[in-house]
């Protein structure tokens, strides 16, 4: 199984909790014998998406900006299980993960279809995929976490995921998070 781990935390001290969670996920995947692609968008050369749609209408499947996003698109296209890790930022994803996800537009087709009663774009590379998104926060915030879980559910719909899960690790519980992370990843593995 191909596992893509996107550690979306900042490279400075604020990303420490993300690094712990990402390391736990990578450790689990390697112990299970999976092929792991581990990428940290904050350390990559990633221009923001310009919304030019060249990846749809000029050179389908390839972004107009030639930078490290190509590696993310390739890994996402090949992934059976995607694990995204991010600081929960106003209930959403942090800038580094978001910049990476904005650039994965080439993986979609421009057609408008209905999926589970909502308009979506079909995937260019159809695959049985699972999505697990792990957020970190310094302290619990039920409202931010509620928004986060809804966002992940919507993203899972974009990817037509056969399984999705989300969990928020508060930094005071960081040491106890590894077991919970493994439970979520195991459930995704079983669903695939």
């Amino acid at each position: 199984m191909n596992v893509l781990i996107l550690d979306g935390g900042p490279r400075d001290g604020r990303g420490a909790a993300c690094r712990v969670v990402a390391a736990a996920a990578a450790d689990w995947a390697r112990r299970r014998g999976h092929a792991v692609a581990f990428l940290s968008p904050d350390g990559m050369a990633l221009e923001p998406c310009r919304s030019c749609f060249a990846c749809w209408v000029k050179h389908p499947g390839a972004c107009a900006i030639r930078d490290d996003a190509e590696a993310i698109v390739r890994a996402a296209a090949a992934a059976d299980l995607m694990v995204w890790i991010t600081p929960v930022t106003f209930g959403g994803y942090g800038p580094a993960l978001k910049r990476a996800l904005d650039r994965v537009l080439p993986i979609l087709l421009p057609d408008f279809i209905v999926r589970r009663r909502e308009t979506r774009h079909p995937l260019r590379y159809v695959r049985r995929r699972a999505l697990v998104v792990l957020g970190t926060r310094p302290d619990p915030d039920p409202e931010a976490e509620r928004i986060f879980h809804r966002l992940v559910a919507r993203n899972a719909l974009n990817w037509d995921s056969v399984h999705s899960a989300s969990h928020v690790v508060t930094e005071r519980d960081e040491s106890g998070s590894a077991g919970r992370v493994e439970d979520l990843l195991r459930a995704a593995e079983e669903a695939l």
Partner: protein
Amino acid sequence: MKALLIVGSPRGQASASRALGGYLLRRLRASGLDVEEAAAGAVLGSPERRHALYKASDEADIVIVSFPLYVDQLPAPLVQALELLAERRRGAMGLTPWPGPFEQKLAAIVQSGFPETSQNLVAVDIMRQFAKEAGFRWAGGLALGMGGAVGRRPLEKAGGRLRNVVKALDIAAASLAAGGDIPDGAAALMARPLMPFWLYRAAATWGFRRRIRKNGARTPRRPT
């Protein structure tokens, strides 16, 4: 009173988000408010512009953020710009905290290329959460589907199809200028479909396929 518009579209001036936010800002100016405008992407590339944004947001009574939906939420440069604003207002990272104490409002305009307005609601909630974490009072959000139909032209030149959009912005501007929030009625008007969903899907798909054909492009099976 002062109003600040932050445009969150990476397309900046040439965007539907700018067309919507710009119209609201002009209506506020017509009501006697001083207005200012910033582009989230430009702020990130220049320390001078970043500090200008801090100053403008400190002085604003109303901050309006207008942006397109990217992957069910805010575009990345806007997330980063708002994170910087929030950190500055909290006094994090050694930055000078916002001096306060007068009440400032935050309102949002979210538009997406999907027909269902409901697809924007998580992004509206994210903006409300930003308001809470950054110390603004939430004044409400306007969410629009079929944003592709707005185009980039000033809404003063828009045709009849956008009449509800224009009316919603007029109502929102009048309320904000009078010290109120965005009324539910304005949000409901903005949410009204501009055309039947099936028609929008068919027209948008046809439009993209036409551009593909025009460019002589083909769809590869794997990433190149």
